[in-house]
């Protein structure tokens, strides 16, 4: 993982509530055994017509959108399936953060493991962001957990301490668990096992 550094960006808006992971990346693209090429499949069925040609009016097909790093979405973003292909596709497109009033649990977990920051804002701030001009620029700083608007005002957003540390340092979680080997062994020694799938 790369270290999560502060950045400024203009916004891409898809202000729809309950955007599920089947929209973010349709299931038929999950047959891949790699993580590559998913950015082109992001929001595929909204983005391309029946012949697979980009729909000129859809926001993700605009050249200006492709260089922006934050997606402003509606409430309960990422609901539905557990596919990590959703944050993979979002980051491969170029997003480093998604702003919403809430995120589905599994999507949020998956995002934090892929340097995609889920930023929760209150409904008032959300409304304010939606009303910003198209080329408004935001600044996002994870260390201070602040989102700064073009008028200079800023809001803080919640991130748990551990995820913040992993993101800022670019450390991956598996490394941390592997360091807990002694505790894992101690737990296994006293655990009631009732299953042996190899039997």
């Amino acid at each position: 993982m790369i270290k999560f550094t502060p950045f400024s960006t203009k916004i891409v808006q898809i202000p729809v509530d309950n955007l599920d992971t089947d929209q973010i990346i349709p299931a038929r693209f999950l047959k891949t055994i790699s993580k590559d090429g998913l950015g082109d499949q992001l929001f595929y069925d909204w983005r391309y017509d029946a012949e697979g040609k980009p729909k000129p009016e859809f926001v993700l097909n605009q050249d200006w959108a492709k260089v922006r790093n934050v997606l402003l979405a509606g409430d309960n973003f990422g609901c539905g399936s557990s596919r990590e292909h959703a944050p993979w596709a979002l980051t491969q497109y170029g997003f480093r953060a998604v702003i919403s009033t809430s995120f589905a649990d599994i999507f949020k977990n998956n995002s934090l493991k892929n340097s995609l920051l889920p930023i929760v804002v209150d409904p008032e701030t959300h409304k304010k962001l939606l009303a910003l001009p198209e080329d408004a620029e935001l600044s996002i700083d994870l260390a201070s957990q602040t989102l700064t608007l073009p008028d200079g005002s800023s809001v803080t957003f919640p991130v748990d301490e551990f995820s913040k540390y992993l993101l800022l340092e670019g450390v991956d979680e598996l490394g941390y668990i592997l360091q807990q080997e002694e505790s894992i062994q101690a737990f296994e020694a006293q655990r009631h096992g009732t299953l042996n799938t190899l039997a």
Partner: protein
Amino acid sequence: MGQPKTIIEKLWDQHVVVEKPGAPALIYIDLHLVHEVTSPQAFAGLRSRGLKVRRPDLTFATTDHSTPTTPKNLPIVDPIAAAQVKQLEENAKEFGIPCFGYHSPQQGIVHVIGPENGLTQPGMTVVCGDSHTATHGAFGALAFGIGTSEVEMVLATQCLPQRKSKTFEVRVDGVLKPGVTAKDIILALCAKVGIGGGTGSVFEYCGSAIRSLTMEERMTVCNMSIEAGARAGLIAPDDVTYQYLNGRRFVPKGAEWDAAVERWKQLPTDEGATYDKSVSIDASSLEPMITFGTNPGMGMPISGAVPEPSNVSDPIERESLTKALNYMALEPGKPLLGQPIDVVFVGSCTNSRISDLRAAASVLKGRKVNPKVRMMVVPGSQIIKKQAESEGLDQVFREAGAEWREAGCSMCIAMNGDQLTPGQYSVSTSNRNFEGRQGKGGRTFLASPETAAASAIEGAVADVRRLMP
């Protein structure tokens, strides 16, 4: 006696490996189920780090999502799906994990084969790279879906860093009326709390209506917890649970079984324990449910009318409903009963067990699927398929004009070629009606197997109670 605890808190406490300041608790995983879609990148990760699977004896793999439901003597036509299935079988072999491969006589949907073989047991933590892992909560297990990075973590360490969820009591009391099923309970919950209502929580389903459900019905309820936003949903184990499990392949035997049952009996929520949130549903007031929109929270009693966006005050909500009804091509204010349909799908980890197939067959027996409708019946596992065939259910389906297919996820997720064409309507016993979920441009009405079968006969959304004796 300490503080009274819910079963959710007991399961959590029993699985904390270590909790260090500034880090989430490390939770031990008792059963890790693996399938072909969300695991290949995790195995690749293990390989690149030179790690092994820590506990192959607590891990089990099956093929279900990408697998065709056509006869097994035919090859997998889609080369990408074939490669993914082969990759899982090879990964299982390389890392020493037991696997029901594509040609295994026990192959089936991951959330069906776990309980069916007694892999899923009370008191366990169960994870799988699949959001419908909550299904296993029916046994009094803390079971939840995870992403591929987490699949890799569990393969390597059998542990996951986790934060405690809120406890959410879902109390369902009363007696279901004829024609109303477990599926209708969970669709009613989704409609009541909404698709994000349980976010951050684990549901405990309790109350007299839940207690009177069979294990298969309990699985249907727990399965769709995620559709109400909760990553896990569970039901405390009782005699129904123990009777279902006793004698299954992977459960303990003899004295070990007795000891296990004694431990499991300590799991139910203590008298006086409290929850962070609660909701209650009166089972006796429920009707068969059906969804009208593009998420499982957009549901209503089958005799209801499609809601009017003009009655919704919040602008984004109104916009979402309008968008959903446009996609579904439904007129606000009109009833759904009588809405013509093209396809009926009976299957999925929600409703593909033997009792679901019996329920659909009992409606279809002596009747015909409307000639305009394609009806697919997809059993949840090869074991269920054989059981259904020994009962003659396949004959009932075939004689009615339905297709009787091989086991798998099939048209629930439409990855394997079983899918709707743009604009088609289906009544489906699966769990998601998201845009394009059952095929690009397809439109899904979620309902029970009984409602699905009745709709197949009428060629339109139908009330099964009119076909009942």
